[in-house]
């Protein structure tokens, strides 16, 4: 039922798509899936951050779902980028939801009280539905 929400209208956009994120459009929502299993390395984190900011700054996407399905863990520096991205989305009256956080990642968010900052859903269909 939920998977129908995504339908078959998923389009891969941005031909020169950033290599660290898979970007899809689904029902007017931009779904960005992290490709990296670990967001620890500073160079990777900088790339991911810039590619996230570009979604708003260069592409004007305001409704964004971040899918963490493949991410095992991330550092405080990566979380800093995420918080900055969240602020950027809110600054354009947009909306951001996170989904598919593995238990280890959920633990990190809870320890840092970031579950109070971000709207987090079990899976991407729920995020798309609620955004």
């Amino acid at each position, binding site marked *: 039922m939920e998977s129908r929400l995504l339908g078959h209208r998923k389009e891969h956009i941005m031909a020169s798509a950033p290599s660290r994120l898979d970007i899809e459009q689904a029902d007017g929502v931009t779904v960005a899936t992290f490709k990296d299993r*670990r967001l*620890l*390395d*500073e*160079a990777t984190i900088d790339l991911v951050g810039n590619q996230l900011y570009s979604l708003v700054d260069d592409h004007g996407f305001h409704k964004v779902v971040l899918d963490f399905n493949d991410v*095992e*863990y991330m*550092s*405080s*520096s990566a*979380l*800093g980028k995420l*918080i900055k991205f969240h*602020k950027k989305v809110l600054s354009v009256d947009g909306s951001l939801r996170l989904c598919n956080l593995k238990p*280890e990642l959920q*633990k*990190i968010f809870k*320890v*840092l*009280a*970031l579950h*109070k*900052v971000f709207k987090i859903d079990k899976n991407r269909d729920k995020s798309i539905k609620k955004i």
Partner: protein
Amino acid sequence: MSDTSQFDYTIQSELAESSRIQEEIMAVLRQLGFEDEDLADLHIAIEEGLANAIKHGNQLDASKQVKIEGVFDGNKVRIEIEDEGSGFDPEDVPDPTLEENLDKPSGRGILLMRAFMDTIEYNDKGNRLRIVKSCTVHG
């Protein structure tokens, strides 16, 4: 796992060096047979400890070094990370979970280390970190 073993590394204060040495350390830890969850916790703590030493301790000054020592005694891992900075008082770091600090950058690394390690402590000067964790070894 009754053997005691150890390692010593010294790196320049560069984040790329931190990434490289973390891979080496994690390879050593994997060989000791610790469970994946413990390895993940250790990796996060080592990353945070090294990032603090390089960015805040040595202020990204590549002429300064960071020493990393590890001792494995049975299932217990102890890692010490020392920078050449002037040190700090961990008590002065704002609590990042307070409402007013939630979107500020400071303190998250220390909090993650506290959450994932059994012990985290700094020397009096605040330039040498010790983290300790008892791990589960694969049967």
